[in-house]
């Protein structure tokens, strides 16, 4: 089970995503932004960070990286793709997921341990969770407010495509308390919080995030 982890200039959480893949029993494969090459991976993680310095707009430049064209093509054929934080922003910019992420409503970068409710445990990345389960993972972002027009929100809610929702006080002004969403086929998931920082209670608040990577390993093995 080979899981690609992309590194753009300015990517920060690639080492964490690679570690999470290893903890889940997968093989982490480094993917370079400038290559038109997915190296025969079974799934791709677009990790967090500040790709290209977040200049212009978060994710707006990364979306045009050669490797992202390959990711978009592969996703269209059903490859599981996970975008975390900056990766979520990139997937939105690449139109693999609808909507956009804007500056936190209180304008500060926020790093905190955040409770999330699992709203959809049928995606490629969430089958290990019980529907309605609450998990605690780090959230760390300055531009994490999820925004979409009303019809998109209605569609996401109507189709059960909200995967994670913030529990308690809304940390960044996201509409409908949305923390993460999925594509229509449930293969592409994007979320602002960081499951890869919660794979071991020694270095994270919990190991609640590991379930996402285990779910992936399950789904690919089953497929």
């Amino acid at each position: 089970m080979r899981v690609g982890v992309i590194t753009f200039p300015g990517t920060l959480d690639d080492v964490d995503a690679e570690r999470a893949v290893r903890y889940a029993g997968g093989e982490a494969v480094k993917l370079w932004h400038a290559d038109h090459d997915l190296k025969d991976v079974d799934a791709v993680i677009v990790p967090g960070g500040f790709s290209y310095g977040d200049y212009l707009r978060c994710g707006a430049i990364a979306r045009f990286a050669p490797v992202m064209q390959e990711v978009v093509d592969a996703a269209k054929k059903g490859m599981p793709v996970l975008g975390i934080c900056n990766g979520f922003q990139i997937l939105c910019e690449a139109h693999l997921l609808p909507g956009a992420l804007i500056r936190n409503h209180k304008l500060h970068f926020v790093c905190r341990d955040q409770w999330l409710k699992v709203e959809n445990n049928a995606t490629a990345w969430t089958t290990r969770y019980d529907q309605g389960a609450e998990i605690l993972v780090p959230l760390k972002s300055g531009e994490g407010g999820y925004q979409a027009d009303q019809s998109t929100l209605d569609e996401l809610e109507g189709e059960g495509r909200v995967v994670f929702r913030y529990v308690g006080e809304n940390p960044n002004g996201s509409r409908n308390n949305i923390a993460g969403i999925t594509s229509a086929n449930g293969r592409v998931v994007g979320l602002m919080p960081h499951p890869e920082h919660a794979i071991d209670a020694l270095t994270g608040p919990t190991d609640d995030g590991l379930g996402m990577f285990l779910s992936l390993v399950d789904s690919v093995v089953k497929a």
Partner: protein
Amino acid sequence: MTVDTVKNAENTPDQEQPYKELGLKDDEYARIKEILGRRPTDAELAMYSVMWSEHCSYKSSKVHLKYFSDTTTDEMRAKMLAGIGENAGVVDIGDGWAITFKAESHNHPSYVEPYQGAATGVGGIVRDILAMGARPLAVMDPLRFGPADAPDTRRVLPGIVAGVGGYGNCLGLPNIGGEVVFDATYAGNPLVNALCVGAMRVEDLHLAHASGTGNKVILFGARTGLDGIGGVSVLASETFDDSAGAGKRKKLPSVQVGDPFTEKVLIECCLELFAQRIVVGIQDLGGAGLACATSELASAGDGGMHVYLDRVPLRATGMTPAEILSSESQERMCAVVRPEDLDAFMAVCRKWDVIATEIGEVTEGDRLVITWHDEVVLDVPPRTVAHEGPVYNRPIERPADQDALQADTPDRLPKPARDELLDLVKTMAASPNLASKRWVTQQYDRYVRGGTVLAQPADSGMIRIDESTHRGVALSTDCNGRYTKLDPYAGAQLALAEAYRNVATTGATPVAVTNCLNFGSPEDPAVMWQFERAVKGLADGCVALGIPVTGGNVSFYNQTGSTAILPTPVVGVLGVIDDVRRRIPTGIGAEAGETLLLLGETRAEFGGSEWAHVVHGHLGGLPPEVDLAREKLLGEVLVAGSRDGMLSAAHDLSDGGLAQALVETCLIGEVGARVFLEGDLFTELFSESTARVLVAVPRTEELRFTDMCTARGLPWRKVGVVDPESDALEIQELGSLPLAELREAWEGTLPALFD
């Protein structure tokens, strides 16, 4: 434009030069002329003036700092791979790992421009660590501000915090600790200190030098611009305003502007270069820019150096040689590379889209020669610039009012009545210095890279270095400026003792020390007295504890008008822990049944205390007694307790005493406790006697642990039990404080002030 060449300088010996505006004294200017045998060129004047500045030359502190190396014994030096004088100190922590760490100040820029000042402070210290060959792993930021409710603090603090976070977060370095302290003396002069820690394999250590004739000098990273030129703009106005006519010279802010994205890419690029072993010497460009990097590289090597200054990639047009040399544009590094490795070097830089330019080469001889379009604009012996600057033995005088200050003890202050004590616990917890710093630290990423085992509000920050062996390091920075004001010698030792204790409290063995010495003007004999005493105190303290000072930083001229800041020698202690899974957390309640023990002895010590400050606005008397032998014993007991799994939580007692430690350990652990104290309850709760730690011991380990303490001669006392069913801190004879109420007090203060 006309450029002042060496030839021109020889022909115009009497030309007046603005050396005074550049901060040079008459005799310093005369010495430059003597060294060169002629007047300096503009470029030479620029280089000497920045390199002979207090910031770069340590001219007022050098004679005192020598005491650190004079007192470091061979035994203390045993694990030191590099020390004072290098970019950063390096310590061997075992398993083939070397740790490098250093702190630096960015105080003045941060007052002028809080966001960029703080941001570039982080950027600068990270490049220092990188230049040692290490991967930077974490940062910490000790900060000092004016009164929390002062209007200017509302301008300065949010900007500085956002700058520290904005740069560090984007760089992908977890922020694992630091301090936020408020005091009126910092009102016009906040302190922004930044510490970075990095790791490398022992064999990968890089020292800055330029050896090997024919080797190439490469400047790589960002382009060089007009930002951060500071005093050298005087030269620009002298040489330009006339010839440029009405076209006013562009003057950019003298605070540099940071680009953390460029630095992140530069870090990865450097690490790849190190891995390929194609770097002979490397130096970061920080204060004094190229002037510093070229003169230091050349002076540390075994030859001379020729730099073609016109090759430097610029981001402004019409820059003079003097400006290019002294520009403090960020995110630049300078490397020395063998000619045969040049192609490989450039290939790595291309991969990371880093601009790299061959700007010169190592030459035979012992001169640093800089040319500008084939004309020599600088020709100096590099050691005279980098290492043989002026040294001052400034007058020292114990302040006339020091005796009066020490005589004004807190004994005269009214003590609270017994029925006021419970409220006082809450009032103190809500006071700005003791209140939760979450408002600040939640703007910092503490998780990135996945190695953070402990971060604020833990006693020390801890990171895992080796994922297979679980070896890690812990770091704490501390300083109580009020203690240091009352007695600089003891105050510096108390800062050392607290940082040492904080590291041991998390289960790590302290091994090395760095410092960031923030003081007022060295031209004030009273300030020099504080400085001299603090250096002696710190050095003597290190000898007592058997751990070396591996590096440090001095920041003078921290004052508003003639009022100096509280003398603030921030001390950072590095500790090693064999297995980070054995770390001791701060919050209680991890085990089913825990007993609370107070280790150490409590005396009525309130001089410089937080209570005297918060309740009476009083500063006088003497600080708490220093007992380094006891600190060492306490540290050994804590490390043994961690190694044998006898401790489930521990929290150091410092500002605010036992009361504050209890409040924090309950709130962090989210459980209540029942506490029983004896003797004078006010002293028990609020005294700041040192060498004390509150520990939680699982019932099953209680006897084993207390037997160990008794056997080793460490006083201990049972002060309570953890009560997982309770949601209050209950203090026998006084009453109960609901945790929700305490949390509101502790966590509410900073958001109320700064949101």
